[in-house]
């Protein structure tokens, strides 16, 4: 259940009747270097193009799209790491731009990369991260071992540096970190990409468990069709920044006259389901 950490989060209390996630005409563009143009010249690339959808509390929605389709941009906008160029996004009624602090109390995220201080242990990484959410060491003393046990992390490896752990183990710690703060909305950005089959199944099983035991709303961005089909109640198809559809899987198949989700995806986008350039490449991160 929602376990809000103290009255500091009072400002982030969900407002009655507000959807968990409410996205309206959300738009994001990035300037992109273009080799054909003269040095210093940039052109704009639309990463998200007037995307609108809502998610009810407790709902799991999968956003399906190829690399570069805008999935990560959507997650980063909802977690207040990006500012939109147009439209609005609200988490339980709180605007991600004007009420970012309240949103940050309500949201947490697991991304494709295991993002930890690699020399520090799982327990140390979870400990300091919990403080950022106002949780004291007294509060996390029992909670961290319990949550690590819940994600199937061996207790005898709790104090081992993260760099010694497998990708699968690191991803379990990432899930534990996200759940430790009891987020009302959990953003999963390709949480199983790059994992071995066994770790992938374990992480997917844990996401299922969160759905049934935790009162979180889950937005799962993935390019794994089977993962989307088995974990989500509704599936959205995001292509070149545009949300083409968002429906239960059977409705999607029916709409596009497809037998499988892959066929539906192909019919919707007119393209095969294959990798292309990473959307992150378009940002001037290394400018």
């Amino acid at each position, binding site marked *: 259940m929602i376990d809000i950490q103290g009255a*500091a989060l009072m400002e982030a209390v969900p407002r009655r009747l507000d959807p968990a996630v409410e996205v309206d005409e959300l738009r994001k563009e990035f300037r992109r270097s273009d080799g054909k143009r003269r040095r210093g010249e940039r052109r704009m690339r639309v990463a998200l193009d007037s995307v609108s959808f809502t998610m009810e509390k407790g709902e799991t929605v999968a956003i399906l799209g190829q690399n570069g389709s805008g999935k990560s941009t959507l997650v980063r906008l909802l977690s207040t790491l990006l500012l939109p160029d147009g439209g609005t996004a609200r988490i339980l009624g709180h605007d991600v731009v004007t009420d970012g602090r309240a949103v940050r109390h309500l949201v947490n995220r697991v991304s494709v990369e295991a*993002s930890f*201080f690699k020399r*520090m242990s799982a327990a140390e990484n979870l400990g300091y991260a919990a403080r950022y959410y106002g*949780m004291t060491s007294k509060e996390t003393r029992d909670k961290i071992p319990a949550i690590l046990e819940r994600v199937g992390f061996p207790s005898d490896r709790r104090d081992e540096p993260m760099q010694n752990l497998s990708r699968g183990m690191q991803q379990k710690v990432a899930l534990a970190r996200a759940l430790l703060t009891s987020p009302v909305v959990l953003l999963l950005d390709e949480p199983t990409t790059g994992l071995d089959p066994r770790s992938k199944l374990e992480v997917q099983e844990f996401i299922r468990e969160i759905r049934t035991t935790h009162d979180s709303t889950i937005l799962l961005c993935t390019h794994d069709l089977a993962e989307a089909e088995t974990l989500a109640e509704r599936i959205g198809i995001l292509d070149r920044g545009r949300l083409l559809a968002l429906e239960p899987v059977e409705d999607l198949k029916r709409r596009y006259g497809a037998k499988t989700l892959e066929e539906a995806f192909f019919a919707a986008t007119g393209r095969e389901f294959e990798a292309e350039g990473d959307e992150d490449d378009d940002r001037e991160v290394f400018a």
Partner: protein
Amino acid sequence: MKALGTTLRAELVGAGGVVERNFYLTKRYIWWDLAWFFWTVANTLTIVFIAQGIEATGGDIDVNTVATSLLIGAVVWAYLGVLFEFLMETVAWERWEGTIEYTFMAPLSRAMHLAGQGVFAISYGLLRAVFLFTACFLFFDLSTPDANFLAAFIVLAIASISFIGIGVMTSVLPLISPEKGTQLGFVAQGTLLVVSGVYYPVEVLPTWMQWIAKFSPATYALEGAREAILDGAPLSAMWDEIWPLLIIGAVSIPLGLWVFSRGELYAKKHGKLKRSG
């Protein structure tokens, strides 16, 4: 009122989290820290030996006074280097480890995030400065019978507030441009080194550099520390050094936070708040 108190408590816990994280990192990289400390000691000894070298080549100087003055300069500069490094690494380190997005999406205010970073940097830097000064002082068997070490320590602590303010301003540079930002940070640090009279009196500088020196907190920290250690000046006699430090601190801290917030907005607008490692 109760909500405000609880929010403040959560913020302080968050700032404590930054200190806790840096403590864990220092513990995990302890051999690097020791190696770095050894290098700093060697570098400081080399600088202090210059006093003996001048005398050995026929220079007519008070070796004890010049050596102590050089030692103070080297220790204060090493301390300043630690503060700047910690603050510049606020963004660069997290970008490299990949934790930057998680830190910036946490509900901890940026002021308390940077305060936590500053508190650890000051604590770690002062401890290191005390060890460095003691080691080199004993090595050269320097004599400062009138030294007021407590006053020197307090001046350095007051100066730290200004150093943190300037450090926060430079720490935003890697946020705007990951590579060039770090380079510009070194340029800012180098400018302070030249103009602040670390190893020589500010009066030997060209007039325009002396003018810049007036805005460097290191100038006043060094003057105060030298007065306290070489002349035994009490804190009450160092008001000429303390008030500029307080003014620079009062301006640089809010200015630094404002600059950082503008940089963060820019990074969020252009998608630069992202890992690079």
